[in-house]
């Protein structure tokens, strides 16, 4: 019946009250991790072996 349908529609409408839950931590935006780095280049520069490192153009002198 009409009044019943109307009441049901109103009830249904009142159910569509949103919960803030929709926006929960799922879409939280985190900052990136930082990884520690080691480098072959730095290590050899420190040992003053730049010549060995940078003079390689393929073949090495025996």
């Amino acid at each position, binding site marked *: 019946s009409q009044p019943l*349908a109307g009441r*049901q*529609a109103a009830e*249904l*409408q009142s*159910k*569509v*009250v*949103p*919960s*803030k*839950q*929709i*926006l*929960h*931590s*799922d*879409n*939280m*935006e*985190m*900052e*990136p*991790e*930082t*990884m*520690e*780095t*080691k*480098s*072959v*280049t730095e*290590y*050899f520069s420190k040992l003053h072996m730049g010549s*060995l*490192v940078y003079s*390689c153009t393929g073949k*090495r002198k*025996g």
Partner: protein
Amino acid sequence: RMEASCLELALEGERLCKAGDCRAGVSFFEAAVQVGTEDLKTLSAIYSQLGNAYFYLHEYAKALEYHHHDLTLARTIGDLLGEAKASGNLGNTLKVLGNFEEAIVCCQRHLDISRELSDKVGEARALYNLGNVYHSKGKNVASAGTHDPGELPDDVKDALQKAAEYYEENLTIVTELGDRAAQGRAFGNLGNTHYLLGNFRSAVLAHEQRLLIAKEFGDRSAERRAYSNLGNAYIFLGEFETASEYYKRTLQLARQLKDRAVEAQACYSLGNTYTLLQDYEKAIDYHLKHLAIAQELRDKIGEGRACWSLGNAYTALGNHDQAMHFAEKHLEISREVGDRNGELTARLNLSDLQMVLGLSYSTNTSMMSESQVAESSLNGARPRAGRRHSMENMELMKLTPEKVPNWN
């Protein structure tokens, strides 16, 4: 000489990784390991970089393997700084793999050695890592339940509290060091930790700092992240207008950065925010935009969410035909992706709509018996679908206001 060729390969790997081509870099590092070297310090650096390259490639099992090799080697040659770095990297990798207890041990080792060596930079970085591990640990346990941010079991609260303390300690040092980039990272994650703890005002303050630093650096991705996080915090402060402003900026930047997935997320957030503001036309507009991108990206989960949201918004407007259409689509997609909770929610919505539309009562009664099953399952412990999957939080909308605290 073998030495040089191992070195050459490693140097090329290093160059490639620096240039951002980790995949190619990995090949050269792997080749360098194959050739081998007598110099253990060189080998340690190769292992470390292999571990990091695999980490950035999201191949965490491999990352773990190489960082572990690096740690063993650093200890063997008595390289304390090398051990600290390897421990930190191993800790970060274990965190991503969800092994929080071991991650804490490794990150703590990174911290202890850095302090022993009076290495302030290393100490700060270790504190940030520890904060991240505790944050992940807290979030991980929290996500198993369903509750608003701020309503937490004790173990979750403890972990998040610890995370906040580590971020604060990190901030003290990096502020002394004048390292703005590090401050930005710490503020962002501290803000997210406060958000989960339910300290929304503190979250806003931290994210505002993060935003400031992002602008200083012209880092638009970080700026976008801050807007999005600010929007989330303002939702829980009940300031929906302000939240919508921040989400709009998120959307603007997402479009500038040409990131469709992030654009979709921003539209979804805006749709939900306008629903909270009871401006259903705008909500529908944004949910339709979200739906279009979800379909474009073949994101079935997102598509299901969009249909569910659209069904609700049309129901609120009293447009039951459209509501019906989207509820049916929601049911179809939920079945397709095997989302049991979504399926139950969709059935409930459909039976409600059918009742309003005065459809055949024979369908109704069968539907209602389904609803009884659904209703009882909502009150028990629900199995959790994977992250971003389930409609678990949305089912709350099916309950009556009296049953739900924090209803608004």
